[in-house]
């Protein structure tokens, strides 16, 4: 076995082992085992770095190391079904591994500080161990998902992540809102998982394999050409099913409702699961099956879902006062960006943004956690203000990452967002009927800069607006160190430092970054021309897009400064100019929850379940079950009579009673104890034997 494969297997295995150990003896370990969980993930991180450097030294888009083991092979039964589980290390998974292990390790470190004081000292800290064991299990599942070479083990890890998400959102289980949020997240993602599962099974039914490699080969060898399911092209249906899985997991329109509520979980969880890793697992999945989406023609749907999500989530973020809610909507919006650009057709840009976003969003969430921590668990930004002089480390980290997400040049978000805008511009240039997508993308760019700087100004600038804000203290080193590391990684250089030997020639040019270079979209026969055209258009659109993005970002920042920094403009007066229905729509989150609960559930599902309960009661219980009782009663009576008459009367009393009596009476005389009679019988028997000897 390749040693790299061993490293790859170690990466999820270590957190998993930590999970099991914490489950069994966690509370008896010193410090309740937080070091075990953190140490495991740091070791995983080292393994991931080892793999990453192996990839780096073989700098090539085609680098791949994979190995799979047969789990079930039905070919001996003449069924061409084969279930393999395996590891696939390519540029995509190697980069992703480093990102996930790094974020997870830093968030583990952050959690030690955050959760420890949250629950008193570790010695008496309630459920401190559970928290770390859940984090470990989640990390193991996420890493298992990343190294999977097939959809099957990916799906298993996917579901484990869903479970961990449920457990961690509802971690403060004494709060009804947290319990409800965890349930909501679980149920909503379940809708998406159903789609993914259907897609998965359809792939297996068609190909007899779950492996990505087989899927790519099947697409290029034309297996899907004339394949149809229910009269719809199979590739479209499967691609849509898998995309619905992503919609659930990555909280895209229309299943976005669970992510803002998921902020009920502890802040490190929001950083790890609901910003950096789990929600991007959905993006990772559609990046993995991108050829299928492209071949099946699902991409337009993908693009619109992404566009709608990124724009409308950004609008929601403007009106939030809870610091975590702003970040939650911003996560939705950025995930929408990734989906949008994937739908537009740029595989590698989506992945690029995934990585940069994970880094700066993990930092933003942890920084907000540090702010909340310093504010004694006050999350309302209206109570904050003036924190920049108290939080010496948190503030610069948050400022850097905010500039990154807003697309300020020199930061990672600028590079990736600029590429997204360029591709969307190029796409719209090629397909003018989809101009709405460009509007979504560009409007979101401006809105993002606005609401993020609104957050910064409301939190860090101005005068303190509460007692807690006046007496805020900087957090301990294990909380600000992760922020510092992630903030350092939010600089553009990390991603666009040229690897081809030209130095840092392209710090401001987003075209040359190693992530995009390493991850060209997998080959799809027949798609070359369209891709080429898109690349061409995006290349031409690059400078206009960059300029537009700069204008929009600086405009957003400027307005945020005017309204919340210097307060020259009154936000309240401006907001009164918006029509009332807009406010209402935003306050009610576009009526999605209302629609799902009042319309879908109460008007549709509940009556339906009432009806089906009635069917159950009347048809099944009363008619079938009770009716069957009557039928069986008649049968019982008949068989009772039969029992009495035939079995008891004739068989038992008659045959069973009379025959043995008669037989016994007649045979009794044989056993009368008289020797002469015995002798007589013997003689007669002997004579009979002699008599019949000749016959026989």
């Amino acid at each position, binding site marked *: 076995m390749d040693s790299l494969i061993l490293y790859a297997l170690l990466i999820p295995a270590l957190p998993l082992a930590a999970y099991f150990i914490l489950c069994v003896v966690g509370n008896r370990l010193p410090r309740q085992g937080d070091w075990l969980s953190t140490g495991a993930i740091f070791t995983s991180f080292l393994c991931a770095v080892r793999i990453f450097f192996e990839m780096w030294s073989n700098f090539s888009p085609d680098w791949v190391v994979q190995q799979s083991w047969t789990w079930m092979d039905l070919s001996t039964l003449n069924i061409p079904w084969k279930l393999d589980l395996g590891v696939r290390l390519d540029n995509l998974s190697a980069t992703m591994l480093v990102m996930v292990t790094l974020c997870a390790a830093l968030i583990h470190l952050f959690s030690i500080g955050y959760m420890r004081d949250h629950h008193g000292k570790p010695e008496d800290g309630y459920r401190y161990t559970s928290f770390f064991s859940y984090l470990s299990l989640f990390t193991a599942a996420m890493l298992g998902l990343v190294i999977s070479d097939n959809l099957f083990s990916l799906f298993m890890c996917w579901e484990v992540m869903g479970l961990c998400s449920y457990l961690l959102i509802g971690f403060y289980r004494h709060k009804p809102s947290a319990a409800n949020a965890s349930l909501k997240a679980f149920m909503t993602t379940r809708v998406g998982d159903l789609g993914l599962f259907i897609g998965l099974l359809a792939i297996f039914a068609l190909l007899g394999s779950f492996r990505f490699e087989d899927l790519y080969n099947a697409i290029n060898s034309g297996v899907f050409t004339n394949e149809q399911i229910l009269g719809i092209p199979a590739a479209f249906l499967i691609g849509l099913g898998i995309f619905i899985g992503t919609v659930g997991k990555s909280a895209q329109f229309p299943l976005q409702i669970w992510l803002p509520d998921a902020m009920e979980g502890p802040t490190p969880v929001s950083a790890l699961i609901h910003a950096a890793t789990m929600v991007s697992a959905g993006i990772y999945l559609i990046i993995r099956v991108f050829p299928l989406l492209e071949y099946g023609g699902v991409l337009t749907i993908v693009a619109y879902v992404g566009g709608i999500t990124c724009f409308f989530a950004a609008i929601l973020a403007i009106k939030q006062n809870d610091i975590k809610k702003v970040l939650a909507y911003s996560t939705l919006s950025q995930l929408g960006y990734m989906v949008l650009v994937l739908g537009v057709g740029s595989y590698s840009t989506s992945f690029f943004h995934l990585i940069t976003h994970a880094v700066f969003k993990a930092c933003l969430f942890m920084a907000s956690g540090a702010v909340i921590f310093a504010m004694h668990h006050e999350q309302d930004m209206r109570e904050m203000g003036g924190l920049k002089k108290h939080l010496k480390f948190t503030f610069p980290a948050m400022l850097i990452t905010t500039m990154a997400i807003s697309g300020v040049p020199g930061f990672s978000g600028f590079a990736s967002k600029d590429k997204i805008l360029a591709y969307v511009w190029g796409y719209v240039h090629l397909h003018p009927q989809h101009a709405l997508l460009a509007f979504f993308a560009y409007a979101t760019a401006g809105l993002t800069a606005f609401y993020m700087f609104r957050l910064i100004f409301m939190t860090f600038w101005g005068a303190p607006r509460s007692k807690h804000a006046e007496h805020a203290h900087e957090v301990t080193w294990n909380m600000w160190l992760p922020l510092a590391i992630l903030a350092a990684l939010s600089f553009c250089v990390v991603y666009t430092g040229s690897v081809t030997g030209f130095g840092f020639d392209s710090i401001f040019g987003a075209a040359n970054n190693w992530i995009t270079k390493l991850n060209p979209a997998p080959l799809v026969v027949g798609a070359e021309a369209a891709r080429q055209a898109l690349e061409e258009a995006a290349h031409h659109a690059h400078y206009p897009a960059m300029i537009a993005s700069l204008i929009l970002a600086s405009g957003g920042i400027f307005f945020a400064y005017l309204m919340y920094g210097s307060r020259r403009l009154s936000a309240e007066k401006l907001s009164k100019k918006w029509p009332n229905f807009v406010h209402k729509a935003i306050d009610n989150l576009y009526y999605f929850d209302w629609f799902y609960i009042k319309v879908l559930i109460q008007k549709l599902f509940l009556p339906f379940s009432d009806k089906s309960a009635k069917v159950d009661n009347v048809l099944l219980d009363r008619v079938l079950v009770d009716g069957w009782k009557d039928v069986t009663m008649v049968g019982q009576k008949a068989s009772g009579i039969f029992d009495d008459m035939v079995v008891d009367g004739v068989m038992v009393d008659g045959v069973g009673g009379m025959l043995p009596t008669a037989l016994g009476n007649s045979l009794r005389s044989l*056993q*009368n*104890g*008289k*020797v*002469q009679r*015995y*002798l*007589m019988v013997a*003689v007669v028997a002997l004579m009979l034997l002699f008599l019949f000897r000749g016959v026989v």
Partner: protein
Amino acid sequence: MMNLASNLPAFLAFSFLLFSFGIVAALSRKSAIGVFMGVELMLNAAALNFVAFQTLRRGVVENGHWLHGHIFSLFVIILAAIEAAVALAIVLRIFGNRQTIDMDRATELKG
């Protein structure tokens, strides 16, 4: 002397009669002594048969097989004597126990 060989059927007929009387006596007599006597008759019928059939083996005298029948009949007589001793002892014990030797009264074997 009578030619035994030529009169074999007569001997066999006599032996048959003897055996028949014996078996009828053994089966029908109430007295244990009668039964015992019937058994003696049957044994002697068998011994007579041995002697009678020995005559058929005249031709093989040279090989020293000419006395087998007679020797067997002697064995039968000895056996009958032993049996008489044992049987009379049993009859005496039965009489000692129940003051009768009626066979119909001895029904301990009844199942």
